[in-house]
């Protein structure tokens, strides 16, 4: 069974990483006095997303549902989060690589092209969706039903078996 203190701690860490992600997405364009500042911000941002992925999977492994072998049930319930997080990470890394590549010599130069603008829009939109789905999943995993045998779980199991 998940302990309240542990869950609070994990939730706080997840929200901290989400907040950092949102902060960098919002203000990274302002903080470009030197290219290295942006580089560090971007690296930490991508690592934060990776950390969040690891944490959410560790939370999945901790559930009774997973330990009972119902991995498909967990995947079915949270596939939106898993897929979106992966897509967002891919968008983020590619955008960061592209932007840093263009701005490395002169951080205040105008580097925008249509392609970069498009990738930028998709990455930022994915960031919002990732934030929503990830937050929802993290909050949802606090439900004690995921950590014990229950009528609900048995009904879900019946549906999966069918």
């Amino acid at each position, binding site marked *: 069974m998940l302990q309240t203190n542990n869950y609070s701690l994990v939730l706080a860490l997840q929200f901290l990483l989400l907040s950092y992600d949102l902060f960098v997405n919002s203000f990274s364009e302002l903080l470009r006095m030197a290219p290295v500042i942006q580089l560090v911000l971007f690296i930490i941002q991508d690592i934060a997303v990776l950390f969040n992925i690891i944490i959410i999977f560790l939370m999945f492994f901790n559930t009774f549902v997973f330990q009972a072998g119902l991995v498909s049930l967990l995947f079915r319930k949270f596939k939106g989060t898993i897929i979106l997080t992966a897509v967002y990470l891919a968008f983020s890394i590619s955008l960061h690589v592209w932007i840093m590549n263009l701005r490395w010599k002169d951080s205040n130069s105008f580097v*925008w092209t249509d392609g970069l603008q498009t990738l930028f829009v998709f990455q930022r939109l994915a960031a919002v969706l990732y934030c929503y789905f990830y937050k929802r999943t993290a909050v949802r995993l606090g439900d004690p039903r995921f950590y014990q045998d229950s009528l609900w779980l048995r009904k879900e199991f019946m549906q999966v078996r069918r």
Partner: protein
Amino acid sequence: MRAEPGPGLEVGHPHPPRALPPVPSATQDDIPLSRPKKKKPRTKNPPASLEGLAQTAARRPSESSEAPIKELQEHPEAPVQRRQKKTRLPLELDTSFTQKKTSSSSLLRNENGIDAEPDEEAVVQKPRRKTKKAQPVEVQYANELGVEDEDVITDEQSPPEQPSVFTAPTGISQPVGKVFVEKSRRFQAADRSVLIKTTENLDMSMDMKPSWTTRDVALSVHRTFRMIGLFSHGFLAGCAVWNIVVIYVLAGDQLSNLSNLLQQYKTLAYPFQSLLYLLLALSTVSAFDRIDFAKTLVAIRNFFALDPTALASFLYFTALTLSLSQQMTSDRIHLYTPSSVNGSLWAAGVEEQTLHPWIVVNLVVTLLVGLSWIFLSYRPGMDLSEELMFSSDVEEYPDKDTGIKASS
């Protein structure tokens, strides 16, 4: 640890290891007690057994509270039986353990027609194991220990009739002066007051723990975020209106003074763009939370039903997309230098071409954000996520569930 001196409930079908004492009352014959019989209704019709269980569970407290009064009236000469009761107690205590634990733990196991017999046997073998799962049961016993002295009955008792569909041995609780605790396979008399003290301490520590569960943490975090979202909706609407007013004021009459706008606004453009993204992201996530966007079908249905909250989410997402699409122009404004300067991004005549669409998009974003705020404030308390996420998921698929029941 429930003291049950009364009836030998399993007289018709004694257990192999221990012989049970004779029944003091004839009313016990109606109660089917043997385990083989008990399995039948469960395996054949799981929902019925569940209902029966619930009925007996609900009925038991009232019966046990009424029983002493009733029995006092029926048997006033009973003190003779006191000694016999003490000798019988251990067996009854044992059966009361099994029946309590099985009734609480086998509830879920039986509902799918799974045979509950192995579980029951396991419980019989280890009646005193203190695991975390057994804590609620222990608490119940602890509460039952707190009996007032006047209620302790020494008379002979004849339990009332128990019309039980469920065949678990349901003894009638009846307090005596001593409590019999099993120690190394033997029951020994213990003083009630000592046990009450220890169990009350246990009770206190257990009452503290479940007061703040993970669900409560999740719920409080969700509500905190909703509050932040509520703030950001209003702040965003205000900011957007202020921004568009500043732009039109700086641009002058009929947008005639665009170079002035660029010179004044260039320091403001990028910070505002960043702030706008931050607030739009928060507002969009908050609006998605309110319509529970992850349940796409419900969200789409609400959108087509012109639900204000669903409309607001759509408008926020559109505003976010439009705002992001102006990132390039914002950066261009941020890097503005007059066209006379060498290497300027703003050649002569380009200003109008670039700035007109940018102003229009900003105006549209302001309108969308303002409208969303009005829509959301129409039903500020609406939060489908909280209703759906923290309510029972069993109700999520009512049709499929009935289908399963019908097929099984």
